[in-house]
């Protein structure tokens, strides 16, 4: 205590001693996993409001969960987007490809070929289904865990790997941490390592599009933990005030590194409810139900396109593995969690649905998996020809000084020269 710190006031019957409440997750390592606090309503029960509905008429939506696929794999209820089997198979394939890519790149990091990798296992639907619900020209402002967006937009796996390896073909010239992609051609904004900064940027992009009479909308993603940053609040405030054509996604995967969602406020309300505070239409969906994610995103996109304003969507999902290659989740959460998770796995669920409607079978699935693994392996081979991190081929050292500004000012040119001179002098 500091010198001037007062003694606490004595408690009295009228004024009991205050207590500090500190959240605790339901289970820690060695304890039984428990998701009883996640209320899972039956599929199909939530009505689908008109896309022009006033937010004030939609205040109950944050407190339920939009689900389309029922336990038997049937698509039910008003939110059923009635997708063609072809599109369903495409979605399944993109999710499976995302997972195959993740597996391979995770292993590459373990093999010392790069410094860092982030998987999205269990959360593939959140990104992939959204990508299909949006227009190809809509602008995406992802976090580091939405690689599924790029894959669903058919972006080159080799190009992604080049970035992960920081090799000589890395379009980002080795400047960025692995997975911090930037793909303008695919409408995929440069990922930032600083959480939630993309949120107000997405709103700004959407406002600009609206100001120009464009038709393209924006969509942003952040984790439930990241909602605590001030940027989230700024973004929601601007999105509300200017009714920006933007879809704001919160990916509630229950964990933020070692902190369970209670440390982001998840014990006291839903993350979809954040939107209520701004008068923004807010939906809460089963994030492991690809059809629900598709339907909610489509609703929000149509709403935005119709100049009815922004939508906030909470995707309830589960981070099935560690935070990143730097993380070991067994240290802080119950090993039983992945199994206890009540919303299943998004790939399994879509597979089940396609099978249920007679458009898919075990054999085709197995064949697809084999083919995708091969596709990823082939891509990896190509990418590794361009080098892996710390091994041979990379951008030239002096490329470091380029692109800080459009034109290089004298002080950077001078520093570049200094570096080159030092090497030369050192005989390197």
């Amino acid at each position, binding site marked *: 205590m500091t010198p001037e710190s007062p003694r606490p006031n004595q408690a009295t019957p009228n004024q009991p001693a205050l207590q500090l409440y500190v959240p605790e997750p339901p289970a820690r390592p060695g304890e039984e996993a428990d998701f009883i606090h996640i209320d899972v309503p039956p599929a199909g029960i939530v009505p689908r409001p008109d896309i022009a509905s006033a937010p004030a008429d939609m205040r109950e939506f944050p407190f339920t969960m939009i689900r389309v696929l029922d336990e038997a794999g049937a698509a039910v209820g008003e939110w059923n987007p009635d997708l063609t089997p072809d599109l369903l198979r495409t979605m399944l394939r993109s999710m499976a490809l995302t997972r195959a890519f993740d597996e391979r790149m995770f292993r590459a990091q373990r093999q010392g070929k790069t410094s860092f990798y982030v998987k999205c296992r269990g959360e593939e639907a959140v990104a992939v289904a959204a990508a299909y619900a949006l227009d190809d020209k809509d602008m995406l402002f992802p976090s580091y865990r939405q690689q599924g967006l790029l894959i669903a937009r058919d972006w080159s796996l080799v190009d992604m790997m080049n970035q992960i390896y920081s090799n000589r073909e890395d379009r980002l010239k080795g400047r960025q941490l692995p997975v911090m992609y930037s793909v303008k051609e695919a409408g995929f904004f440069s990922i930032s390592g600083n959480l939630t900064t993309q949120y107000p940027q997405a709103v*700004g992009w959407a406002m*600009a599009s609206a100001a120009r009479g464009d038709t393209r909308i924006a969509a942003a993603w952040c984790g439930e933990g990241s909602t605590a940053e001030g940027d989230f609040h*700024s973004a929601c405030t601007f999105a509300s005030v200017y009714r920006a054509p933007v879809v704001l996604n919160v990916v509630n995967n229950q964990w933020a590194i070692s902190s369970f969602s209670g440390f982001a406020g998840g014990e006291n309300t839903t993350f979809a409810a954040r939107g209520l505070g701004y008068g923004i239409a807010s939906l809460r969906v089963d994030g492991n139900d690809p059809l629900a994610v598709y339907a909610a995103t489509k609703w929000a996109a149509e709403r935005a396109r119709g100049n009815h304003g922004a939508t906030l969507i909470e995707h309830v999902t589960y981070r099935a593995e560690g935070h990143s290659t730097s993380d070991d989740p067994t240290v802080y959460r119950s090993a039983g969690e992945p199994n206890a998770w009540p919303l299943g796995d998004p790939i399994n669920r879509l597979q089940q649905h396609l099978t249920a409607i007679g458009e898919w079978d075990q054999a085709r699935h197995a064949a697809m998996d084999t083919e995708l693994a091969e596709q990823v392996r082939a891509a990896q081979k190509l990418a590794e020809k361009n080098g892996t991190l710390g091994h041979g081929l990379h951008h030239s050292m002096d490329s470091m000084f380029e692109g800080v*500004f459009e034109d290089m*000012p004298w002080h950077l040119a001078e520093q570049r020269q200094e570096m080159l001179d030092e090497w030369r002098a050192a005989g390197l």
Partner: protein
Amino acid sequence: MDDTNQSMSMIQAINSALDVMMERDDGVTIMGEDVGFFGGVFRATAGLQAKYGTHRVFDTPITECGIIGVAIGMGAYGLRPVPEIQFADYIYPALDQLVSEAARLRYRSAGEFTAPITVRSPFGGGIFGGQTHSQSPEGIFTHCSGLKTIIPSTPYDAKGLLIAAIEDNDPVIFFEPKRIYNGPFHGHYDRPAVSWAGHAAAQVPTGYYRIELGKANVVREGSDVTILCYGTMVHVVLEAIAEAGDVDAEVVDLRSLIPLDIDTITASVNKTGRCLIVHEATRTSGFGAELSALVQERCFHALEAPIARVTGFDTPYPHSLEWAYFPGPVRIREALKKVMKD
């Protein structure tokens, strides 16, 4: 270039620069607290909303983080946002968006996305504004790679530099010395205020012109000592020289901190052999430190005396003691004497 000249105050020159650029480029978009209908607490954006509409000039929620974050998104779309931060003292909530985002977007995306924003903000003291309407945080921005930092000292420069800043495809921090918005200030708070009218640099073309970023202005040639300064301090320095009488000082108005006009600086110090640096910001790790380091690295053998700094003291800006804190003519004169003696 339209060469009709008109007498303008600095605030009018800034308004004119914005007007000219909004006219020329329909991507130029102004946003900030109270900048719309009201035209800004200093009137810098007066009349622009009426002329260009609410889509291009609008009030914002009070979140500097949001203002800059949204501006970056608009810039990435392809617009040229000119966000205003009402006082430089309130720029800190936006710091992450400025230094982690705007400053690095071009670099980290290898040029795919850029943040061609110009952040205007009144800065500096001398208006009895207390701790939160007086600060000079320019040093922080000069430390963050990827940002340009510009500070004008006259109406003419303000307009030409602001136009160049808006046209620049990189993020620019444009700090406006609010003490001299309506007239030059020579450091004597107890003398009557003067207006810009009659000042040579208040003759401002009504149309388009630009002053290249990165070029200093030698506002007074001299042979005894080089004084490096910018913003309000340019005028205070000139006054101090006039009062000192016996020192033939060369005064370099930097105008652009990043990129810096190093050639003009070194040429001057190599000529005079002495150097005094003056700024309002607190001393430790202020931009004066960088100037001092650069000058001694490059002009070491020409220097006849230690480079000296006259700056704001390393305290929060004290409301009622402003005129002891502010680097006025007395302090500059005394420092000059010392630099000349050593």
